[in-house]
């Protein structure tokens, strides 16, 4: 393989990468990356900066503290999972991966002061695959809310909350 062919191959790879990234940005729900022309999904939850996250331990501490503002907690994932176990005091809004769920979320918080402390969570599946938390976070920030945190659930709500013996409620 001569130098000219190598340059052509590199150019093709770079152009392919650029085209793929452009296609990804046009998609509101997922972002795609490219490896040798193969397309694969990158879930948006992983793009949330750590400054916008709150760990389960931190949230439990806030909830159990006699002082300090308590957040409005909203589960933005699966209703069936919510019914089996959810954070006491949290509300179910609907999957934020759907427009219907987002509309419900916006309606719920519309009348709230934009400085309201809000925590959103899901826990349906591994963080890297969660389709719900990023759209919910985006929606709240677009409405002007300034104190929004996303509960970081690495694996699922069972493993990262219930199994840790954190407070749990059942039903609707």
């Amino acid at each position, binding site marked *: 393989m001569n130098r000219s062919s190598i340059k052509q191959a590199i150019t093709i790879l770079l152009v392919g990468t650029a085209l793929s990234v452009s296609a990804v940005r046009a998609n509101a729900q997922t972002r795609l990356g490219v490896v040798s022309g193969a397309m*694969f999904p990158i879930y948006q939850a992983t793009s949330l900066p750590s400054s916008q996250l709150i760990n389960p331990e931190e949230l439990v501490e806030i909830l159990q503290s006699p002082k300090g503002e308590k957040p409005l907690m909203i589960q933005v994932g*699966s209703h069936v999972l919510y019914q089996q176990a959810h954070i006491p005091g949290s509300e179910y809004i609907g*999957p934020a991966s759907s427009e219907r769920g987002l509309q419900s979320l916006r309606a719920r918080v519309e009348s709230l002061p934009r400085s309201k402390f809000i925590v959103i969570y899901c826990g349906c599946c*591994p963080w890297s695959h969660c389709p719900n938390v990023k759209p919910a976070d985006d929606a709240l920030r677009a409405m002007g809310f300034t104190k929004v945190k996303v509960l970081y659930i690495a694996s699922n709500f069972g493993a990262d909350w219930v199994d840790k013996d954190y407070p749990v409620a059942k039903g609707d």
Partner: protein
Amino acid sequence: MKKRIPSALALIAVAAGLYFVSRHHAVPGGMNSAAIEHSLAPDFSLPDLTGHTLDLSSYRGKVVLLDFWATWCDPCRDEIPHFVALQNKYGGQGLQIIGVSMDDGPEPVRDFYQRFKMNYPVVMGNAKTGELYGGVLGLPIAFLLGRDGRISAKHIGAIDISVFEKEIVSNLRSGVGPG
């Protein structure tokens, strides 16, 4: 320096791609396969997508792979084609895969069923079903039941399909449970 820039950019593109691939396939900490005790699988009667009632106990004598999943769960969707293949391959030997959808309603499930040409029954699960099985608080979760109706394995999170296949073959051969 000018000659090195294209090579450097190509290396960056490849490295970025490899990073994203690893993120896609990574199984986060906590998603471990856990063998459970040889307990009898809780029975249930749930509607399938045609409205008929499916009784789990009617499958006693078969090796059952009970898959809790949902159409919005990407790792679940990834497993479905593999389950279809397993049903094709081992159905004649006594394997029965049953999907328990944890979707909020059957409409998206029916659409998914058609599109993915699923070849095994899917029932609509609910919170009670999840609680019967110890709490289905994340998806996917799969239970393998031996011919005697006892749970021989439980898998939390997506795992390599070869693991399922080995366990299925073992259960089919043993006649009672894993060898």
